[in-house]
């Protein structure tokens, strides 16, 4: 009965949230607004002095936290030192955003000078994206480490540098103090952002895609029309992969609004690895963006949000002591507004107004002390239909019709095991994906490609092995088996560096209708160990088998991490990478192979004090076997290329301030065929600067971001020959990518105001992109006969107003 009442109460509260939203300004949002306060799902867990954290104290712990015995006097004499350490999960991944505080007890040394117990926690810091923290405490103190989704951990302060603290997922009740092995060295230049950080980077509108644009190495462009991936280090969108819960998703953002298909509220963390990624990642020759969905927390919350672009609901919490859930749903709202803001005199009928639906689900369940299971599902449905005419006749209108439907759902069931030195992760993931595009009367793409991917990885750690310390050995494998069904009727495709051809609605030179299997297999192993207390090396080997192309590859990769004096850490990484032939119509060609890259990266990280971090990296990527169009129109692996560059990222977190400065330099060139001249990649962007600052205090959060980046290269037309019978102009071009669009700069600002309305935390925000209306040139349009040129300018200003309610 109580349970029933509780449920009804929860529904009532849910309705209350909804009512507040409806009664509000009418514009509320969750994916738009940075959370101005600590995320509601991750409240600090208050620990009373006599309430110990759940895990048992480490053997070295001076006293059981639950022990209420009176304190001796000695703590006052113990010296206060600056202590650094790192927090990882059982698989060695850094745990960012964990709260590290000092637990007061007899041996902690945190008692006051009068010999009386101090407050339970005298200092609190948070781990950064690398899981690192620095705190000033007395020797002998006990640190309490807490993070949503994990059991609290304890660590004894015995020296200025602590061993890594390994946290286990909530509920396993395993001890979390012992060192089980050091995490693999983070790739130079890599970043980890948790949800709170995603929401605090100013100017990113609480959107994953826009947060990515602040990363060093990510190519920025004002209107990423037609691209759904991320361009990293000047290569091509297809060279990098986007993963959710370790498995690839086909699209990252929607056709309209350039919004991510997963709201930031449903994201636990974002790993951005621009290069040098480990053997567990593959099928990419450039970088990796890995999103982890948000597990539910102990505190149950519901929230709703709506803006001019979209709106949605999210609920999360725990079902019982061992089971947590998160469920989210979002729908576009721009489709409700768009028809009323389009000028009535343009020849455009939005038969199906561009719209999208997104859904996310995650359930985590603890089976035992050693096993944890999760179910994760993410999906999207993106559709639009446009007729570039107001012609009433349906038959005639078909000639000017454009229809697109992109949808997929990926479901993953996984289990994680941890017992002493052994850890394992098992997962089975399936994806159903469909893409339909129809242009005019005869051009079309219909693609369906369901796939199933089982994946397993086992990690064994050793404190000492063969004279090495903190040894971690991992071995894993996966099989990705899909079946592609394609029905294509398209013009000859335009590949990297090939300037656009004239649009001919009757051109269906590329035709295919059939189905085939696409089985890919991979296995990997790596071993990491400390050669010296300051030097850690990781060596790995990955093997990929792209069975459709009868190709087997070996990809050795290695990393070296050296801790230097003065808070400096140097990292070096070298590795071989493969991108299978799956871009555009490459899958139709079984006689071509994967594209290769050899990445060499050196990085330096400097953390002079808590909250300040400077990270630089320099890289050189050699690309070979690039898939290019041969003289006879077939595809071959004849291209070569190279990219060199350098990146800088500096962050500051102190008091109410959060600052972010990133700069990238990149030079990316290629040769398509032996003997051809060297040219720039389509996405070569020499300079990209992002400077952001936010301030958060009380009810207010203010933030701004300034961007300055190079325009992209393009190939200027030199004229055109009129094909009178086809009634089209065939352009002639100058050297490929021999011109460049001008630099772009803009300033984005955002203001949030937070208040409480009864039990609901409300946030109203204004987010304005490009506040000084800089209409810079993003590219160029040409007249139908290429005799005239017009500038394609960026959107002058994008204002957004929203309201969010969290219960």
């Amino acid at each position: 009965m109580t349970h029933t009442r509780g449920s009804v109460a929860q529904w009532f509260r849910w309705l209350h949230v909804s009512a507040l939203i409806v009664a509000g300004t009418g514009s509320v949002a969750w994916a738009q607004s940075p959370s101005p306060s600590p995320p509601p799902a991750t409240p600090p867990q208050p620990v009373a002095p006599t309430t110990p954290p759940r895990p048992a104290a480490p053997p070295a712990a001076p006293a059981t936290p639950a022990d209420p015995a009176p304190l001796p006097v000695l703590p006052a004499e113990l010296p206060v030192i600056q202590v650094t350490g790192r927090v990882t999960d059982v698989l060695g991944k850094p745990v960012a955003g964990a709260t590290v505080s000092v637990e007061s007890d007899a041996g902690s040394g945190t008692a006051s000078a009068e010999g009386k117990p101090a407050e339970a926690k005298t200092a609190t810091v948070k781990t950064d994206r690398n899981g690192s923290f620095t705190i000033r405490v007395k020797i002998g103190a006990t640190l309490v480490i807490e993070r949503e989704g994990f059991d609290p951990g304890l660590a004894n302060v015995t020296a200025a540098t602590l061993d890594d603290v390994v946290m286990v997922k909530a509920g396993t009740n395993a001890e979390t103090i012992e060192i089980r092995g050091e995490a693999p060295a983070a790739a130079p230049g890599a970043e980890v952002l948790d949800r709170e950080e995603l929401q605090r980077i100013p100017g990113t509108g609480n959107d994953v895609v826009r947060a990515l644009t602040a990363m060093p190495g990510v190519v920025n462009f004002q209107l990423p029309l037609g691209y759904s991936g991320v361009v990293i280090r000047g290569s091509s969108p297809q060279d990098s992969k986007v993963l959710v819960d370790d498995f690839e998703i086909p699209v990252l953002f929607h056709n309209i609004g350039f919004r991510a298909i997963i709201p930031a509220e449903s994201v636990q963390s974002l790993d951005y690895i621009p290069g040098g990624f480990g053997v567990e990642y593959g099928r990419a020759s450039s970088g990796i963006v890995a999103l982890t969905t948000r597990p539910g927390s102990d505190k149950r919350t519901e929230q709703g949000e709506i803006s001019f672009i979209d709106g949605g609901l999210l609920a999360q919490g725990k079902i019982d002591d061992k089971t947590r859930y998160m469920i989210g749903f979002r729908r576009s709202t721009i489709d409700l507004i768009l028809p009323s803001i389009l000028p009535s005199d343009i020849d455009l009928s939005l038969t199906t107004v561009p719209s999208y639906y997104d859904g996310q689900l995650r359930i985590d369940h603890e089976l035992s002390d050693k096993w944890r299971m999760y179910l994760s599902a993410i999906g999207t449905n993106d559709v639009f239909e446009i007729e570039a005419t107001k012609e009433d006749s349906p038959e005639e209108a078909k000639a000017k019709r454009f229809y697109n439907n992109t949808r997929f759902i990926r479901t993953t069931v996984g289990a994680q095991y941890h017992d002493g030195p052994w850890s394992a992760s098992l997962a089975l993931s399936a994806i159903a994906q469909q893409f339909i595009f129809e242009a005019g009367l005869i051009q079309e793409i219909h693609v369906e490609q369901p796939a199933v991917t089982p994946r397993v990885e086992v990690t064994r750690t050793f404190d000492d092995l063969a004279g090495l310390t903190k040894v971690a050995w991992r071995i894993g494998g996966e099989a990705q088996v899909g079946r592609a069904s394609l029905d294509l009727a398209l013009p000859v495709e335009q590949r990297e560096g090939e300037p656009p051809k004239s649009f001919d609605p009757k051109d269906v030179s590329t035709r295919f209708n059939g189905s085939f299997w696409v089985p890919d297999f991979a296995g990997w192993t790596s071993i990491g160990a400390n050669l010296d207390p300051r030097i850690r090396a990781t060596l790995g080997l990955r093997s990929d088998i792209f069975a459709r192309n009868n190709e087997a590859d070996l990809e050795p990769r290695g990393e070296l991490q050296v801790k230097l004096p003065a808070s400096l850490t140097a990292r070096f990484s070298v590795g071989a990478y493969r991108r299978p032939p799956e871009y555009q119509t490459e899958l139709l060609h079984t006689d071509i192979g994967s594209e290769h890259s050899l990445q060499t990266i050196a990085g330096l990280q400097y953390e002079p004090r808590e909250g300040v971090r400077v990270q630089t990296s320099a890289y050189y990527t050699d690309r070979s076997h690039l898939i290019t169009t041969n003289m006879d129109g077939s595809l071959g692996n004849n291209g070569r290329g190279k990219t060199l560059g350098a990146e800088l990222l500096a962050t500051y977190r102190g008091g109410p301030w959060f600052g972010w400065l990133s700069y990238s330099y990149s030079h990316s060139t290629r040769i398509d065929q032996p003997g051809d001249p060297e040219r720039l990649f389509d996405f070569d962007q020499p300079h990209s600067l992002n400077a952001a600052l936010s301030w958060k205090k009380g009810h207010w959060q203010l933030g701004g971001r300034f961007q300055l980046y190079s325009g992209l290269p393009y190939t200027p037309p030199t004229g055109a020959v009129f094909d009178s019978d086809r009634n089209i102009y065939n352009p002639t071009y100058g050297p490929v990518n021999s011109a460049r669009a001008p630099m772009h700069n803009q300033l984005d600002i955002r203001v949030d105001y937070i208040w409480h309305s009864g039990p609901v935390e409300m946030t109203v925000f204004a987010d304005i992109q490009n506040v000084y209306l800089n209409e810079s040139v993003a590219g160029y349009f040409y007249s139908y006969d290429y005799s005239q040129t017009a500038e394609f300018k960026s959107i002058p200003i994008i204002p957004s107003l929203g309201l969010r309610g969290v219960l």
Partner: protein
Amino acid sequence: MNLAIVRCAALVIAAAAMACAGDLDPKWQLDHTRIIAVRATPPGIASGQSSTIDALLGTKGAPTSVAPPQLAEVVSPMSLADALTSSGGTWTVTAPSEDRLAAARTELMLAADAPVPLELGVSYDDQALIATKVVFLGAPADNPMLINVMIGGQPAPPSGSQITIDKTAKTLVSIDADNTVFDVEWVTSCGTMHDFDLPNAYLKVESDDPTSGEFGVVLRDPMGGVAWQIWPIQAQ
């Protein structure tokens, strides 16, 4: 196949097709210097028959004109380069003997009874305007007919006759043509064309549009046939 990438290709096509013209002259604009259509009369000829080449030309600030090419040459196949001749400013294609056509079919890997496409390059305005045109050899064919052309609900007058339209209203225009087979192109230098590439279109004179000029229609068939009709027009 990576859906992200295939979507990229698709959206680029859509963007190209729907690209906002901005300050660029649209394709229906007659007040623009260009070759509007190249015509072979007839477009298909049997061995021994001849076809003459001319074109409809648009010139900025001037009325359209019909003229033979200043220069012309055979682009393909070069083995039939002598099929094109010039005399007194007139360019003429004469289909060669059946034997030579048979040899050309072999060269071009065509079926034994297939028409042989003779691709011509033509130029105007001191080679500032260049176009290609195919004349089919070995298969006689005629240019299409403009059937049932209606302007403002009335049958179109003969070429050259003045058309007067109401500048405050849409002027509906139509032609009997299957747009899955034929290419229809309405052109004007007076007003704004809507759906200029559909058999049923309309003309509307906006406030900043010229109120006089020319109006026309060009019809192409899939075998190189082309026909056009141009009228002077005034909006009142």
